[in-house]
């Protein structure tokens, strides 16, 4: 395990538990909740151990409620962990929020840090004052960001009148105005059109490749992950389930391609050795090759044993892969709870 100073981010056995009030039901529920409060402990992040090197762009992935946002909030110092250790740029973020603020920048999805009724340019100037950014650095940053994000087209417009895409571009700039080493982006491109998304990706790539920033990105947009991140961290139910490259993820969870077949007449049962039956509705079936079986092997087997009228091979996209991974984890967790 690396030391706290080597990497941009180090988390060891990081855990966050919330105490949630349980509501009474039935008669006088409100009064009973007041007189006899009952609470449950909910563990949102469970012994998360991870590290992110300097200059890396990693994706923190997981289904809704997996603990991604809570993890980000602990890494940024907003939330205090229940237990475990966390170091960001060598500091414990929740204990040293003021110094930590200079090292990090963040965008939290739809939550804006811009002043709603003021033009974005005025918000930038206010953030310059808050972070005490020297004027020369501020001017350079603004010029840099404008060259990619084309902010000057709309930065004199009050933020409340900006489109979502325009606002998010301003949020990105606002988060990096003070030249932070590490940037946390919690679903920054949600709801944006493809053109703006690509512009944002170009901006992020430039920040990593040219400015050496470390970026941690949470997103549900798999195209974004595929185009930006070499490394993914997959968490579910607050636990780290996978840490590696997308290629490794595909290899570990298999099913990188599917064979879609249409029959001339309804077929009762479809069985091809070395494959997993993904779906079957009589006239159509989808099979996933497993192990050493190739899609070509499956096509040959189908044609020789069934009345096939149409067959095609489809590469599994990342969305499907993630769905399969999430569902597999749910099944595993369900099985474990049954055994327990």
């Amino acid at each position, binding site marked *: 395990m690396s030391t706290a100073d080597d990497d941009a981010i180090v988390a060891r056995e990081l855990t966050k538990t919330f105490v949630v009030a349980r509501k009474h039901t039935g008669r006088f529920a409100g009064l009973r909740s007041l007189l006899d409060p009952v609470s449950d402990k909910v563990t949102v992040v469970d012994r998360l151990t991870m590290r992110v090197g300097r200059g890396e762009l990693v994706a923190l992935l997981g289904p809704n409620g997996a603990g991604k946002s809570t993890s980000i909030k602990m890494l940024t110092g907003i939330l205090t962990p229940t237990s475990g250790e966390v170091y960001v740029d060598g500091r414990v973020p929740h204990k040293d929020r003021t110094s930590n603020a200079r090292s*990090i920048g963040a965008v939290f999805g739809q*939550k804006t840090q811009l002043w709603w009724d003021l033009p974005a340019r005025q918000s930038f100037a206010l953030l310059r004052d808050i*972070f005490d950014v020297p004027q020369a650095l501020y001017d350079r940053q603004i010029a840099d960001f404008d060259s990619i994000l084309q902010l000057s087209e709309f930065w004199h417009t009050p933020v409340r009148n900006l489109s979502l895409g325009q606002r998010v571009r301003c949020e990105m700039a606002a988060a990096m105005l003070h*030249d932070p080493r590490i940037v946390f982006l919690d679903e920054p491109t949600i709801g944006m059109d493809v053109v703006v998304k690509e512009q944002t990706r170009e901006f992020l790539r430039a920040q990593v490749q040219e400015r050496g920033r470390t970026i941690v990105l949470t997103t549900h947009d798999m195209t974004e992950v595929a185009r930006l991140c070499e490394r993914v961290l997959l968490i579910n139910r607050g636990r780290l389930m996978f840490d590696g490259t997308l290629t490794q993820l595909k290899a570990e969870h298999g099913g990188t391609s599917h064979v879609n077949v249409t029959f001339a007449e309804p077929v009762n049962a479809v069985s091809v050795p070395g494959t997993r039956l993904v779906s079957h509705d009589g006239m159509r079936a989808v099979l996933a090759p497993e192990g050493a079986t190739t899609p070509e092997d499956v096509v040959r087997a189908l044609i020789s044993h069934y009345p096939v009228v149409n067959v095609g091979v489809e590469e599994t996209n990342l969305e499907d892969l993630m769905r399969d991974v999430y569902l597999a984890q749910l099944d595993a967790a369900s099985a474990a709870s049954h055994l327990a």
Partner: protein
Amino acid sequence: MTSIVIPDVAKRRPHRSWRLLRVGLLNERAFRIRLVVAPMMLAVQLYLYDRLWAAVFHHTGKAAGLTLKQTLTYALMALLLGRVRWNARTVNVRDGIPISVREGTIVYWFLRPISPGRFYMWRQTGDVLYGGAWALLGYVVLRAADVINPPHGFNGAVVFAISLCLGQVVLYYLGQIVDIAMFWMLSNNGLARMYYFVQDLLSGVFVPLPFMPPLMLAIATWLPFSSGVNVPLSLYVGRTPLSRAPEQLGLQLFWCVALALVTRWLWQRASNRVTVQGG
């Protein structure tokens, strides 16, 4: 790859965060109509209060130990003092604590190199200076029209100015406590509205405190609200003699220190229980 140059200044404490004072004025300028409505509203309030108190004193020369001129001075200046913190009442202020907690944007308060308390202070001070400018304008107009009395000499003016500042500090901390309650309540609209009604009533904004029934007056005297408006105005109109000024200023100072300690403690607690609604 070029490495990031972290400027030396990043190691220093920020010294330009005071410029947040201008946010309040910028917000007002964003809706220029407010710059017209604010003086109109103030003029209407002052005129109606003037007529109301003139009617109350129609058949009497003195009430609650005050003459009509003293009462008008107290009541109209109380309205002006109420205007000072008008924009600092953060219930509907987009970058205030209530809306920031409700919308989750409070996270950014904890990602800045100045503490949330410091940010709050600069924002509030800016709003108070803006409101204070309108109040000062109203004061100058009322004095020019001889509707209200001048202070009792130079000493009276100085004592009033000190008491006024201490009173504003008391109201600042009281309002801040209501705002910080948002971290626990997640919605404090009801609390805030109730608080501001009680504050205005028991500080003397609605009606000069000497007109209150004895029990209510006793309660108001022992609560911090009266430090905000009643104490400085009683000194101004001469209802409280200047010889009692040290005692009154001491009481205000006590509230300032006590509320500052409570606020500091609440910020520490609130910082450890930031919840972010909506993920």
